[in-house]
Structures are given as structure tokens and as C-alpha cells.
């Protein structure tokens, strides 16, 4: 046996390979991004034959994994919770059709939210799609559950969702593991058009089949004592019981243990759908009140139908938004115990400490683009060239263009383009010439850009689209994009040209440049703007291409410049506010604007931004 501290996502990867998973597809997104790389690490170290791919988006990933499972293989597909929205079309249909080999969808939730647009609860997507969902409390449990999910999926021929929340994905835990073995099971496709290509008439039959599967699985979950259990003592009555699952269960369990309050019974449910009602009913009967602590929404609270007895979000006992961190759960328990005149918990933190922290006026740390980031150069040029434009943008590091005043909107993957065309038509309807500049990253463009761009071209929208091409998927940890042709496992695939896709979408104005060259960028934006206004014009696409400094390190700045600030500096703070490079700062001791040479990457872009020309290259 080997022992290793695994990231929760690594524990999930380990579970997948222990279960003989043969195909793993994914699109990166926090907090799911590390699952596939961890699979790849183990596949290489253990010499396995699992096929892996970074797919271009989550729907593509799910369709691919689904096909593998239809061929009888064990397949998994990993994404973040909002990625499941993209894959929803595929999920809903796959639930009806069913699988042959195992299909496990791992959709990682982000209560907080720490790095997402929403706090949506994947368990509700599972309920909507009518597929079972498992809710692990710890990395170790997630690892075991993956194997259980595979078996369940294969037995009932149904997709199964594993929903780890961020505190499972990005937890670290020490785990023991043995040798991993190849799964040599060969694929086979049995033609069965009434299933695999079912028309609405057969869909009704499949729906009935799905409902029968769910009823059987709910029964199975009632006796699934490895994951679902309660701490009732036979015949005893309780004033309060707690129903919990997932990460909040782990917290509740720790608090009750720490506080010696294991007299309060807990029902742990790791399979919230289909709900194991036969397990919940005796618990409900033994308790006068039941407090439901679950993340992120109210699935179990809805499913426990007794509104008199059940306390939770709907009754105002649990916060309706935000992460259920230990101190929040501690507060929920304390208030509920007090309200029911039961023995309270021992007070933990000093109640004044938050007032103290707030009184210190600590600097707000907003995330910023890295020193030398090519996006900064592009945004600076865009804002300068088109100050009155609406700046539609998208999901990625470059959402931080907000700080430079060059991002006005961020809706979902691909919406930079679709919102730009939407704005165009909304204003042109009024006869208003509203400048619009859309910015989208290279990976996001591959994910969801083309359909919106084809639509915009076809429907005659006019705007400037800047594709911020840093030759990687930066925010989620430097996954390769199709443009590089490097595949998930590092092998060489076929590179897909961004320029050719853009041209193929019907765009006639395409310029590729390096945004570090602000002068060139300004000139190209001017030409682009003219093109947008020409009678025969349309959408102008500028591909601002420069490698990400985290992914490509020194290679990203081959010509390093030593930068200094001269006495010409008027301390106007233009550079600090409008360029926002972490390497340019106001030095309190010197009382002047200065360059932090440890942070400065020598990109030299700032040399042309100062209105006084006070930022110069050192002699």
C-alpha cells in the first residue's frame, strides 16, 4: 500500500481508476479542474490504459462519455456545477435513454461562491433530470462513492451524478492505496434504435422505465448503511434531530463530537435523490423537530414533507445563501437549541473579534491580472481607443478587466459575443450608433464562441470582437486549448486554427497582433472601428495573441526591459488606477510611485502609458 496526501479531486481520480474507469472526459472549471490531471498522473504512474480528453465544452464532454458507456465501457465526465447547465440537454435525454456501461457525472458545486457565477445546487439538476445523486462529505468518502456510483450506474443502466462541493474537491486528505489495474473490457455496440434513437412514442415508455429504476434505487438507498445512517437509540424520543449530508454533515459531526453533544441524533443522507424515505420516516417520528443542514439549497428540506416539524432554510433557521462554514453551522445549532429551550453549545469565538477586524480598515484584496499579463495591455488599449463603448466580456482571468474599466458585462460562457450582438440590435433599432467591444478568451471561444459568432454575422450585428488569445486556459490552471494541438495527456493532437474558425464563421475582418505593442493595437482598433461602420462592414475580429506568463514563464517575455520612474512623475496615479499592474505601487516611505522589481516581469508595456512619459527604460 502507498500513502499520499490527495487533493479531494485527486481522491476522486483515484476512485475512478480503482473502479476501472476506461474513459474520462472533462472541461476545466473551478472547483473541478484537477480531477482530470490527477487521473492522468495516476494513469501514467500506474501504467493504465484509460482514455482521457479535455473536451471543448461540458456538453461535448458528456456526449463523448455517454457514447463510451453505450459501448459498454465505464465512463466518467467531470465539470463544475455551471458546466452541467451547458451539458443539461445531454443529461436530461441520457437519463431517459439509459446507459449500458457505467456513466458517472461528477459535477462540483461551489457554495460561497468562491469562483463561480452562481451557488446553484447540482442535486436539483439531478432531481430535474431524474438521475441518482451522491453527496460525499470527505475526499475519502468521495473516493469510495465513485466506485459505488459506477456499480449502481451499470446495474440500473442509468447515469449517476456525484456532487462533491468545493470543500471536498479542494480538501486535502491522507489516503492509502494499492496497485491499480487496467480494465481490459472491450467495447461493443448493440443496435437498438428504439432505445438509442428513441422517438417521442418510445420516450414515454423510457420515462416509465426511468421512474421504475428510481423507485428501486430509492429502496436500495434505504439500506445503504455505508453512506446513510442515523444515531437514534431504539425507543428513545428526542426534542431535536439533525438531518445532514455532504460537507455540512462532516461539520455537524465534528461540532457535536467536539462539544460532547452526541446526545443530539443525526441522520446522515449521502443519497439525497432518489430520497431514501424509509430511512427518514423513523427518524422523523422519533424527533419532535428536525433541523436540515444541507448545501446549497433545500432539496432534502423539500423532500421531508412535514412542514411543522422540519426546520431549515424555509423556516429561516439556516442562511439561504453563502457557504455553511463551521462557525455558521455552529451559530445555526446554537440559535435553534436556544429557541427550543435545549442546552446550548459552548461559545467558541470572541463575539467582538469581527468588530475588531472591521475596525482595522484592512485593504480589500481584489484579484488582479498578473504583472506582465497580456490581457492588461489589451484592455488598456481597448479602453483608450473606445472609451464610450459597452464592453461585453466573458468567463476567465480576463473578467478582471473589470478593474481596468474595460469589462461591463459577464453573463456566462460565450456571452461576450451574444450580448454584443444583442446590444447592437437593441441600439440599432433606435437608430443609435453604440460602440461595442467584446472580449473573450481563446478557450472560452472554443467552448461557446462559434454559435454566437455565426449568429451575429448571419443577423448583421456590428461590433469589435477581441479574442484574448494567451495560448492556454489560464484561470483554471493552464489546460491546453485546441489551438495548440497538445492533448490532455501531453501527446500531440491536431491543432485547430482560431483564425480559420473565425473566418469560417463568416467574418471578413481578422487581424492578429501582439497586445504588448500598444501602438499597433491602437491602430488596428481604429481600422476595426472603421470597418464596423463601413456600408459593407460587419464584425471586426482582433486576435490579441501573447502567451500567458504563468503558463510560459520566461518564454513569454523574451525581451525583458528594466523599468524606472523618473522625477517627471506627477503622482497623478493614472498608471496605478488605469493600468493596475501589481508591480507599480505607491511607496509610502519614499512618498512616490515606484516599481517593485521583484514583481516586475520586464514586459515593458507600461513604458508607453504614462501621460508625462515618466515611466522609462533604465539606461
Amino acid at each position, binding site marked *: 500500500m502507498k500513502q499520499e496526501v490527495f487533493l479531494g479531486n485527486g481522491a476522486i481520480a483515484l476512485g475512478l481508476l480503482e473502479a476501472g474507469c476506461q474513459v474520462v472526459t472533462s472541461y476545466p472549471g473551478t472547483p473541478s479542474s484537477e480531477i482530470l490531471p490527477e487521473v492522468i498522473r495516476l494513469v501514467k504512474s500506474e501504467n493504465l490504459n484509460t482514455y482521457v480528453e479535455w473536451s471543448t465544452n461540458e456538453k461535448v464532454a458528456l456526449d463523448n462519455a455517454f457514447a463510451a458507456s453505450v459501448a459498454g465501457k465505464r465512463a466518467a465526465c467531470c465539470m463544475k456545477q455551471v458546466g452541467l447547465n451547458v451539458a443539461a440537454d445531454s443529461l436530461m435525454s441520457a437519463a431517459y435513454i439509459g446507459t449500458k456501461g457505467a456513466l458517472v457525472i461528477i459535477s462540483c458545486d461551489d457554495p460561497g461562491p468562491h469562483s463561480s457565477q452562481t451557488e446553484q445546487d447540482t442535486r436539483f439538476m439531478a432531481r430535474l433530470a431524474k438521475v441518482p445523486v451522491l453527496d460525499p462529505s470527505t*475526499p475519502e468518502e468521495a473516493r469510495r462513492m465513485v466506485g459505488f456510483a459506477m456499480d449502481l450506474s451499470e446495474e440500473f443502466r442509468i447515469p449517476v451524478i456525484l456532487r462533491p462541493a468545493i470543500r471536498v474537491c479542494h480538501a486535502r486528505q491522507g489516503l492509502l492505496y494499492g496497485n491499480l489495474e487496467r480494465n481490459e473490457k472491450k467495447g461493443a455496440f448493440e443496435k437498438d434504435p428504439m432505445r438509442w434513437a428513441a422517438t417521442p412514442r418510445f420516450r414515454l415508455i423510457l420515462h416509465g422505465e426511468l421512474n421504475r429504476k428510481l423507485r428501486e434505487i430509492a429502496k436500495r438507498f434505504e439500506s445503504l448503511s455505508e453512506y446513510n445512517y442515523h444515531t437514534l437509540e431504539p425507543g428513545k424520543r428526542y426534542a431535536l434531530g439533525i438531518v445532514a449530508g455532504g460537507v455540512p454533515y462532516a461539520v455537524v459531526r465534528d461540532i457535536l463530537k467536539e462539544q460532547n453533544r452526541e446526545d443530539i441524533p443525526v441522520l446522515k443522507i449521502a443519497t439525497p435523490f432518489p430520497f431514501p424515505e424509509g430511512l427518514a420516516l423513523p427518524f422523523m417520528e422519533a424527533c419532535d423537530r428536525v433541523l436540515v443542514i444541507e448545501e446549497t439549497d433545500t432539496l432534502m428540506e423539500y423532500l421531508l414533507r412535514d412542514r411543522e416539524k422540519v426546520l431549515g432554510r424555509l423556516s429561516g433557521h439556516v442562511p439561504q445563501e453563502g457557504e455553511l462554514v463551521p462557525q455558521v453551522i455552529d451559530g445555526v445549532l446554537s440559535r435553534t437549541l436556544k429557541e427550543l429551550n435545549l442546552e446550548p453549545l459552548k461559545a467558541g469565538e470572541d463575539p467582538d473579534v469581527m468588530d475588531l477586524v472591521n475596525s482595522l480598515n484592512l485593504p480589500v484584496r481584489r484579484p488582479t491580472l498578473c504583472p506582465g499579463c497580456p490581457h492588461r495591455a489589451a484592455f488598456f488599449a481597448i479602453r483608450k481607443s473606445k472609451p464610450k463603448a459597452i464592453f461585453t466580456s466573458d468567463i476567465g482571468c480576463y473578467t478582471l478587466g473589470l478593474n481596468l474599466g474595460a469589462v461591463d458585462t459577464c453573463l456566462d460562457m460565450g456571452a461576450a459575443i451574444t450580448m454584443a450582438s444583442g446590444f447592437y440590435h437593441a441600439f440599432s433599432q433606435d437608430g443609435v450608433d453604440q460602440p461595442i467591444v467584446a472580449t473573450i478568451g481563446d478557450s472560452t471561444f472554443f467552448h461557446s464562441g462559434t454559435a454566437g459568432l455565426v449568429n451575429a454575422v448571419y443577423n448583421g450585428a456590428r461590433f469589435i470582437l477581441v479574442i484574448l488569445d494567451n495560448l492556454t486556459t489560464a484561470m483554471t490552471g493552464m489546460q491546453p486549448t485546441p489551438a495548440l494541438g497538445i492533448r490532455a495527456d501531453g501527446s500531440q493532437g491536431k491543432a485547430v486554427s482560431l483564425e480559420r474558425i473565425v473566418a469560417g464563421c463568416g467574418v471578413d475582418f481578422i487581424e492578429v497582433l501582439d497586445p504588448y505593442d500598444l501602438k499597433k493595437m491602437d491602430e488596428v482598433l481604429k481600422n476595426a472601428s472603421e470597418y464596423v461602420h463601413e456600408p459593407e462592414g460587419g464584425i471586426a475580429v482582433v486576435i490579441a495573441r501573447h502567451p500567458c506568463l504563468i503558463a510560459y514563464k520566461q518564454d513569454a517575455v523574451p525581451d525583458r526591459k528594466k523599468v524606472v520612474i523618473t522625477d517627471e512623475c506627477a503622482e497623478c496615479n493614472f498608471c496605478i488606477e488605469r493600468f493596475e499592474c501589481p508591480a507599480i505601487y505607491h511607496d509610502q516611505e519614499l512618498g512616490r510611485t515606484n516599481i517593485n522589481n521583484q514583481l516586475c516581469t520586464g514586459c515593458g508595456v507600461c513604458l508607453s502609458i504614462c501621460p508625462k512619459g515618466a515611466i522609462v527604460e533604465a539606461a
Partner: protein
Amino acid sequence: MTTINMVLCGLGGQGILFMTKVLSQAALRKNYPVIGAETHGMAQRGGSVVSHLRLGDVQGSLVQTGAAQVVLALEENESYRNLPFVAQGGDLFVNTSSPHFPREEAKAFLLRHKIHWHGVPASAIALSMGAPLSSNLALLGFFSAFGEDPFSHDDLRAVILETSPDRFREKNLTVFDAAFEKGMEEQRN
């Protein structure tokens, strides 16, 4: 065993994940059950970053406020932001060279809760060793002068030796050891 709770904090890019990795590996080598929580994603681009580490029979990866026996801060303001985590009688190690550490407003709180504070010139030590990006190793080295099993100097040093990439190994150990000596000085005083 009593649960050991630690919180590590600082800014994105300062190497908090590496510190967490070293500490959790050290715990695992001594067969402590270990679980922890990390910050990934957007906050890594220069925002506040926090890592939690817990040793013992626990399932939750987050430390509750008022429960961390040790807080390691790579930046002074982040140490104040994370004051709510420090337990009564706990230890607070902060990377700072400021003569004004800790701020007066915080001092009363620290004294009231019998919290031992340690201002550690980790960045200065790292810089003087020609490794300006290794403040994290300097802070760990200083802490190791106070650390008990499984976080003694030898425990942590062994993990750094093992986990450092080849080209950084020697430098990492030099910074770590130099800061350990500083820590020992403070221990003796």
C-alpha cells in the same frame, strides 16, 4: 489525540499551497490523520488566500473560528483578517519586519486571549539569501523552531528535502535553515 488546527494565510502567489503541502506531508509521514482545505481559482490572482489544516479524528476540512492553535501569516494585514481563527492561548506567526507589529488595536485582543505573537522577518531572510520568492520557506523554518511532532525542524526539513524540485532544493533548505536559526534565537530569549 486532541485535534490540531492550523490556518495559513497570505496573498495569492506567495506559496501558501506549498506550505500546506509540506505540513500535511509531514503529518502523514508520522501517521497523523490529516485533512485540510485550500483556495484555488480566481483568488489565486493576488487575492487573499487561506489554507486550513487539521490533524486528528475530524471529517470537516475547515477550521472553526476561535479554534486554530497555530496561524501562519505570510502578510501582516492578512494575519489581522484571520484573527478570528486564533484560539485562546494560540500562536500567531507573521511575516513582517515592521517595528509596529502587532498594531495597538490588535495587541489588546492578543493579550486578552493569551495569544503568543511572533513577528518573523521571513521576506527579509529570504531576500538576504538571494531567494526573494521563498518567504514561505522562511516562515516555515522559523515556525519549525517552535514546532513539535509532527512539525519539528527535522520533520519539516525531511519533507522539503523530498518535495522540492531538484533545482530549488538546496536554496529552499538554506532559507529554511537560516530562518530556523532565527526562530531558535527567539526561543532562547
